[in-house]
């Protein structure tokens, strides 16, 4: 009789102990401690809540580049300056006559005589789409507003809205200098020739002969 009761008590205490142990384990394994996050996104959001900048800056790498500051939407960043890089700026020094006269045989082959427009098609694009007849020093928007040559991205993003938004955000285009602020982005024309913007096909820079040997 006594034995049977003792066994029951033993079993009950065993069950209680195991339940208590499980409860303790469950709570101990919960990562409520600092620096423990369920995933990376949680960690990023938690750690960047009080972000106040770092000591690292890309300024020293951007010093030699001619740049201007622009602000698009809520982003403010530097872009490379264009006008000073154009060898034959001001355009009006030559373009003070109609083009037909400039193309005259007696005038000869001046400056950029060999420009070929390879951008969209004839129905969409000709010289007047971007350039203003009366003032060749500037660009003209679709609504006939003036666009400065340094801010050519405003012109390109009229048709390329998505790329323009991506560029402002940082998903499109090249960052010069470094990852640390202040941000310096390459402009549209820095990578794309506006008259023939697509990238040409080419051969890769590398061929790994050792890999070929090892895989034989």
């Amino acid at each position, binding site marked *: 009789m006594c034995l049977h009761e003792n066994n029951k008590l033993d079993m009950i205490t065993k069950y209680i102990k195991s339940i208590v142990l499980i409860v303790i384990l469950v709570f101990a394994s919960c990562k409520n401690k600092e620096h423990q996050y369920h995933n990376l996104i949680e960690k990023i959001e938690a750690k960047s809540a009080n972000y106040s900048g770092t000591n690292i800056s890309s300024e020293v790498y951007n010093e030699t580049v001619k740049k201007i500051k622009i602000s698009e939407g809520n982003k403010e960043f530097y872009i490379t300056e264009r006008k000073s890089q154009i060898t034959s700026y001001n355009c009006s020094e030559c373009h003070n006559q109609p083009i037909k006269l400039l193309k005259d045989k007696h005038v000869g082959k001046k400056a950029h005589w060999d420009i070929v427009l390879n951008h969209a098609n004839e129905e969409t694009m000709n010289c007047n789409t971007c350039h203003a007849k009366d003032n060749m020093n500037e660009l003209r928007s679709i609504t006939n507003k003036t666009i400065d040559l340094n801010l050519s991205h405003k012109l390109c993003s009229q048709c390329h809205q998505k790329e323009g938004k991506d560029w402002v*955000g940082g998903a499109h285009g090249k960052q010069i200098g470094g990852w640390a602020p202040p941000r310096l982005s390459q402009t549209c024309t820095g990578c794309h020739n506006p008259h023939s913007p697509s990238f040409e096909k080419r051969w890769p820079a590398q061929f790994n002969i050792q890999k070929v040997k090892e895989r034989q």
Partner: protein
Amino acid sequence: MSSNNKKWFSLNLTNKSNKSESRGCGKEFDSCSNNKHKDGYDQIMDVPMDRRSAFKKITTGLLMGAGAVSTSCSVVSGDDSKEKSSIEWEEYFKGNYKLMTDEERNNTVDRLVRSYELRKGEKLNISSKDAEDDVLFGYAFNISKCQGYMDCITACVEENNQDRSSQMQYIRIHEMDDGKGFNFEESNDNYYHEVPAEGHFYMGTQCFHCENPPCVEVCPVQATWKEKDGIVVIDYDWCIGCRYCMAACPYDGRRFNWKTPEVPEEEVNKNQHYLGNRLRKKGVMEKCTFCIQRSRIGKNPACAEACPTGSRTFGNLLDPNSNIRWILENKKVFRLKEDLGTEPKFWYYMD
């Protein structure tokens, strides 16, 4: 158990095998040891040898050790070789980089610079810069923009002093068939024709610097670890070359030096970091370090800098105004092998 030659404990659930083995051995103990398979230690130490040859071998070993010690203490050898051997001695006995104090780190960097100067006569610039606060590096790759040029690979090899003869490359650019998605089995990572080829697209892989890296968990000596700014690094002087991390990495991010890496002198990148692109030795692992010698001073890694199409973006994940954060918040991003829970810090997106 004693008659068995197994080195591990086993439950004797079946009696048969035990009896047959003991019967096979019989009463003579020697025939048992003849069947025993010798392990590496026994193969060297348990060799039957006569006294004379044993004596010869022991004395040669002792002389070699004495010679090594004497070059640093000798009166006759020149100052240069004394310095070289004292540097080698110190470097041999230094500890794990993680446990070093700042002073010890500076000392080891100075020793490495001095050792290179003694050997080659050139001055290096090895940094031991620690991770900056509030920085967590992330990387984004635009698969619409990659055209398969492999300029990133060329830049990486030049920047990180990788072995030229085995053509070690941290980055792999894969040429994949359109319409089949990310099919690595049918992709080609060593092509040589005009790119971009019709009907294919291109994307690149490298070490993804996981937030939960499997390679760090399996290293038996803790020679690899994740730094505060998220970069997974290797202490080349602590690595024993077991390559367990190479087996653990699901993304083929790690490379092993099967031979002493050799870089032509004029191509050596003299701006180095202790955990980054300093010259490694035979038998250690290496991998992409997000160009730690560049990223810790604010520059982009060599691959991001070199890409002509701008498909690689690098930045600080903790900066809400950075490009990488904008990409993660506004573009359709994904990572590879998400189900493994490694949390890589390398995202792919498309236009």
